């Protein structure tokens, strides 16, 4: 009898030894004469359980995790392939694990379930249903669906996707482009990576639909070079899509056409900013362009271009399959649908948590995340990437909603939530924010390019106990100048983590014996 077993294969599962585990499992099965069909799924993104081995049974999939090589002997002894067996690593039915059960996985419904590059798996899980519907709708009807869904850009700025698409649709040009922003530069975020590694056909489907909606026949995925596995998976999936007439001149036998290509970034954070990204795609340095004109009017190679984040485009197939209302029914206020949050940093149960907007940050960090990995008290949390504010306990009851976060002078951004325990030195974190901006600034405007370098110097003086109040005032002025005088959000938002650190964690800046003498700080200083 053949038993079906899943071993995950995303970057993190592999980093935790999943490939070797799968190989050893196959060898042991052969030795013992057990017929195991070992399939490689993506990951459920419950990372404290990885590698999470799943066994298919009539009742559903039973899980075991986290499985180390040294656990294989006892798993085989327990006949784990039968599913519901007694073993210390047995987790029961995977779908019943609270962390997963309490989520609303609309976009991530297939992630971790299917073999990422198996077209049949994709099709049998509602794959291409949205595209089939889209092929029968007019471009305007498609754009109207996206508007009605209330979808807002998931890359950070939360701009309504339907309105962006309308602008491009209305542009009277032959050649238009769809550009997927897969630069995912924010630390603490990996949801884009998960889409590309675990369900790449969903992104391809979303991009084809975007092309149909605005009249674009060429798409590019601008992928960060730090994601080698996502690159490989996308290339495989695109090749399969071409072979099966999903991409190319006759999509699913219809007259419409769409071509798609992956382009790699080269380790520049600023290239996640959409106009810098377009410059980079054109083969230039990633200097930010002044807006207007908007990329929707003058974009790639001067043509009207939709630039959307991976998650924005990945939400599209669901909307076209299940209807705009099904999507808009989730969420609160003007934040409709779901946001895939990512729990990262010093967190006990890290992973992906896709939730309808509305719960509090505290619920996310504790009910899902379980607090810190170190077991020490949670002290600060940075939401929304390196340009996002650091939030203390008093802010954790803020609801996960774009407007609620804006009111708290914070951003949800791309949904990254990075936890820090009480060993964090917020002076050092503030310094890092400025140093990061100094390294990653495109250099076009002075407040950002020079301001960030000055910012590092001022923070160093504060941390050395030099005229603390005077230098804090100077830093505050500098932050205002950067906010008011920068061309883009790199220089314009770098002050947010700095100001929030000073406001909420003032004590870390006024302790005169700031440990600037520690070797680690010196090392950082040399680097930047």
């Amino acid at each position, binding site marked *: 009898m053949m038993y079906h077993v899943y071993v995950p294969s995303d*970057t993190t599962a592999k980093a935790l030894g999943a490939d070797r585990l799968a190989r050893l499992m196959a060898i042991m099965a052969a030795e013992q004469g057990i017929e195991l069909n070992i399939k490689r799924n993506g990951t459920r993104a419950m990372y404290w359980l990885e590698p999470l081995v799943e066994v298919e049974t009539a009742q559903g999939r039973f899980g075991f995790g986290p499985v180390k090589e040294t656990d294989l002997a006892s798993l085989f002894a327990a006949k784990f392939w039968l599913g519901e067996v007694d073993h210390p690593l047995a987790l029961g039915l995977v779908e019943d694990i609270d962390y997963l059960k309490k989520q609303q996985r609309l976009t991530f419904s297939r992630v971790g379930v299917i073999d990422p590059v198996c077209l049949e798996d994709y099709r049998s899980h509602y794959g291409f249903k949205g595209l089939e519907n889209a092929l029968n709708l007019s471009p305007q009807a498609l754009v109207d669906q996206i508007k009605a869904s209330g979808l807002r850009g998931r890359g950070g700025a939360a701009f309504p996707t339907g309105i962006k698409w309308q602008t491009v649709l209305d542009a009277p040009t032959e050649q238009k482009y769809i550009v997927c922003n897969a630069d995912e530069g924010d630390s603490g*975020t990996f949801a884009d990576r998960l889409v590309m590694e675990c369900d790449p056909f969903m992104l391809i489907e979303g991009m084809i639909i975007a092309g149909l909606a605005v009249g674009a026949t060429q798409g590019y995925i601008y992928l960060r070079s730090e994601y080698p596995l996502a690159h490989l998976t996308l290339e495989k999936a695109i090749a399969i899509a071409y072979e099966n007439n999903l991409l190319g001149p006759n999509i699913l036998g219809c007259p419409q056409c769409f071509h798609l290509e992956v382009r790699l970034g*080269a380790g520049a954070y600023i290239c996640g900013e959409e106009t810098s990204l377009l410059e980079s795609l054109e083969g230039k340095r990633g200097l930010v362009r002044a807006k207007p004109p908007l990329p929707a009017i003058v974009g790639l*190679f001067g043509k009207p271009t939709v630039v959307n984040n991976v998650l924005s485009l990945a939400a599209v197939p669901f909307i076209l399959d299940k209807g705009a209302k099904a999507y808009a029914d989730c969420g609160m206020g003007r934040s409709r649908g779901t946001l895939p949050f990512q729990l990262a940093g010093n967190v006990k149960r890290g992973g992906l948590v896709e939730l309808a907007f509305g719960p509090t940050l505290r619920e996310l960090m504790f009910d899902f995340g379980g607090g810190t990995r170190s077991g020490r008290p949670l002290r600060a949390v940075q939401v929304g990437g390196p340009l996002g504010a650091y939030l203390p306990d008093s802010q954790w009851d803020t609801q996960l909603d774009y407007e609620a976060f804006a009111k708290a002078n914070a951003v949800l951004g791309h949904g*990254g939530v*990075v936890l820090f325990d009480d060993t964090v030195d917020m002076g050092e974190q503030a310094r890092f924010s400025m140093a990061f901006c100094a390294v990653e600034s495109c250099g076009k405007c002075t407040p950002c390019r020079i301001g960030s370098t000055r910012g590092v110097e001022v923070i160093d003086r504060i941390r050395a106990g030099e005229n603390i109040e005077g230098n804090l005032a100077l830093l505050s002025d500098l932050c205002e100048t950067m906010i008011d005088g920068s061309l883009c959000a790199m220089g314009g938002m770098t002050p947010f983590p700095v100001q929030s650190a000073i406001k909420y964690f003032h004590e870390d800046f006024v302790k005169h014996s700031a440990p600037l003498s520690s070797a680690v700080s010196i090392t950082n200083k040399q*680097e930047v």
Partner: protein
Amino acid sequence: MTISKFVTYEPSIAQTIIDDFKAKPGALLPLLHALQDRFSYIPNESIPLIATALMLSRAEVHGVISFYHHFRTQQPGRHVVEICRAEACQAVGARQLEHHAKQTLHLDYHQTTTDNTITLEPVYCLGNCSCGPSVRVGNDIHANMDPHAFDALVERLKTDLLEVLQ
């Protein structure tokens, strides 16, 4: 032992790669990637060839190469070890890891060990943010890299056992 996936620079190989890419819209970045993937760096000798093919000045090509952290014009060691310096890894000890790596390898970032085994580079996020500190070597990402795990990794790299083991 592993066989290096890189080849020694030859103008004719570079020219073949350049010819493959020059007709693409926005060819420069894909072309630079292809050259670095083949030679492990972008040799200065190849820059005039690129400039001619794409009808750019050498300065423009230089400008692009130097803008992007990923591209290098010096040959690195056999293994490029990239340590994540970003916030999610900082929260679980990346600063200590960086310090440890520099101390034990006697290197700063962008430098190579005298035996030419390891080049140390910083990187800002590998997307392994729930299981840091993270380190990348080639196309492999390594999770939970405390100093002890790092030493073991370096040992394997020195003996080139990594790919055999995995």
